[in-house]
């Protein structure tokens, strides 16, 4: 069974969609066993899927829709046409390689990854531990796995009776350590992160480097995480290789080449000649060598660009480019396009550095710049371990739960790198709060504090007049359930003992 992709106009497809089951004539030789076709209108995003029942050679007939007037070769018996969520071109593969470009028609393979759920962690625990956890949960005790592991040792030594007593004692201890209901955990978390934060300001406001690469650390990084910035100031990825390639230097260097995004400006000078209306590209040999690019790569990259004529042949060193339309505006546009034209690599990745991990003597790649989605599609890398420090990107590619884990990990790492010990539970609370609504939200005016339901609480935080005026216009009601609003009106706050209401029932008994 084969799958095809082709380019067509939206108008044609909408007409075909209305017809339902119909026949459609196309201008290319479609393999007989084709069952699926994906259609794009702009050569980038595929927005229609056609389910095909059979393919015949073209014969003239009135009972069919034609893609073009001339050159028709095959007729697709269409079962139905669906509009689908846009699929980018790179999702399709041809002879196991990702498609990067395509002409009007192509036979492709669909990715055949089978989706499976993650193995259940609880099942991986040893039976001894699950047994202890079961006994504990029968006593309404929430034991942690590490405590259960320690208890396994005692379970063998003690009689069931004594073991039960031991668990009861642990239960009493755990109860005293639990946080009280209506305790202001948020405030405690804020103080616990804030206090060591002050020490950070004094000690570091600098960068600390991984060889030639800079990664923001310390307070600026912590602020970045909590503010949920769209793009961090130093986006960086950690790329792991599949176990079989981890020790091969050759593969590592190839992956580095595949990763690093090299533009024309990286390896050559671009000179504008206004009198001749041409642009001259002067390749610099040492830069070309460093980036592992040769002249034909450069010409290939130029061939992808539209609206230009390349005037020089393969032999000459300099390449002269002339815009097809002669105007200064166009000349300027072409120059700007040339500067960012990619020769190879993944957009967004400025540099990739391979390092051997001293402890395990395995290669790990670090990149400057981040593009998680495309890096995960490289065949040699271990997609399950590779990650980026751009939290918003993680939320988009891996989902909100991965973003929560990533906020927690990044914040914890930033603090512990400075030698500051903050209890992990505080950071978990912050991470949970930031991802509560299904997207990553900043702490502060734009995020969590700005979305409180109470007007008075919002007004007490920032931009007082805006919130009060808006509430007045819309007639908002404040039920006074929070803390800030109760302080404003002078009532006991709804925390701790203030959160408990006593009701006296007169008629009881």
């Amino acid at each position, binding site marked *: 069974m084969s799958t095809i992709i082709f380019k067509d106009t939206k108008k044609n497809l909408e007409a075909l969609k209305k017809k339902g089951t119909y026949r459609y004539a196309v201008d290319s030789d479609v393999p007989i066993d084709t069952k699926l076709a994906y259609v794009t209108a702009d050569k980038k995003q595929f927005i229609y899927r056609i389910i095909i029942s059979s393919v015949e050679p073209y014969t003239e007939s009135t009972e069919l829709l034609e893609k073009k007037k001339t050159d028709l070769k095959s007729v697709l018996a269409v079962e139905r046409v669906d509009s689908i969520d846009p699929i980018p071109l790179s999702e399709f593969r041809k002879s196991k390689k990702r498609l990067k470009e395509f002409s009007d028609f192509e036979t492709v393979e669909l990715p055949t990854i089978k*989706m499976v759920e993650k193995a259940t962690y609880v099942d991986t625990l040893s039976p001894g531990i699950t047994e202890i956890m079961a006994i504990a949960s029968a006593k309404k005790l929430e034991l942690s796995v590490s405590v259960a592991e320690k208890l396994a040792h005692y379970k063998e030594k003690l009689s069931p009776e004594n073991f039960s007593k031991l668990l009861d004692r642990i239960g009493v201890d755990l109860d005293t350590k639990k946080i009280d209901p209506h305790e202001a955990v948020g405030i405690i978390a804020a103080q616990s992160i804030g206090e060591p934060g002050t020490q950070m300001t004094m000690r570091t406001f600098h960068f600390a480097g991984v060889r030639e690469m800079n990664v923001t650390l310390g307070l600026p990084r912590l602020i970045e995480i909590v503010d949920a910035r769209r793009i961090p100031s130093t986006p960086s990825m950690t790329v792991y290789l599949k176990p079989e390639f981890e020790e091969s230097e050759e593969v590592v260097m190839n992956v580095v080449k595949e990763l690093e995004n090299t533009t024309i400006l990286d390896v050559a000078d671009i000179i504008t000649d206004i009198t001749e209306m041409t642009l001259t590209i002067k390749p610099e040999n040492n830069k070309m060598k460093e980036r592992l690019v040769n002249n034909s790569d450069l010409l290939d990259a130029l061939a992808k660009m539209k609206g230009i004529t390349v005037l020089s042949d393969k032999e000459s060193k300099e390449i002269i480019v002339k815009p097809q339309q002669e105007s200064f505006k166009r000349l300027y546009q072409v120059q700007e396009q040339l500067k960012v034209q990619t020769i190879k690599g993944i957009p967004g990745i400025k540099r990739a550095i391979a390092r051997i991990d001293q402890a395990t003597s395995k290669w790990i790649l670090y990149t400057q710049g981040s593009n998680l989605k495309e890096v995960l599609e490289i065949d040699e890398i271990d997609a399950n371990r590779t990650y980026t420090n751009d939290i918003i990107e993680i939320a988009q590619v*891996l989902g909100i739960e991965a973003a929560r884990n990533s906020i927690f990990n990044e914040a914890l790492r930033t603090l512990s790198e400075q030698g500051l010990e903050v209890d992990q539970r505080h950071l978990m609370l912050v991470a949970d709060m930031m991802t509560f609504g299904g997207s990553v939200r900043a702490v502060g005016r734009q995020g969590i504090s700005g979305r409180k339901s109470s007007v008075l609480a919002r007004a007490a935080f920032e931009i007082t007049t805006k919130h009060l005026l808006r509430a007045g216009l819309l007639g908002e009601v404040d039920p006074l359930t929070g803390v800030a609003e109760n302080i404003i009106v002078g009532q006991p706050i709804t925390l701790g003992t203030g959160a408990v209401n006593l009701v006296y029932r007169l008629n009881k008994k």
Partner: protein
Amino acid sequence: MGKFNVLQHDLVPEHHLVPKKEEDKVLNELGIAKDLLPKISRSDPAIKALEEIHGPIESGTIIKIVRKSPTLGYSVYYRAITSEVFK
């Protein structure tokens, strides 16, 4: 749609669908109404991956998330699917 299974990534915890029958039990245990649960978008990559396994998932379905926790070993969290799509 993808060549990479999001659910297998180290950063992504286990996502499980909670069957309709068990929803009340879960909500009772938590003592909370469904609309007060934390949210997860319908367009979330993890939900899309679950849809490929289980077929279309309605919004309002509760997702049980089992996280690895450095303090407890593992911890259970619930999110309800919203139709909201975040950019």
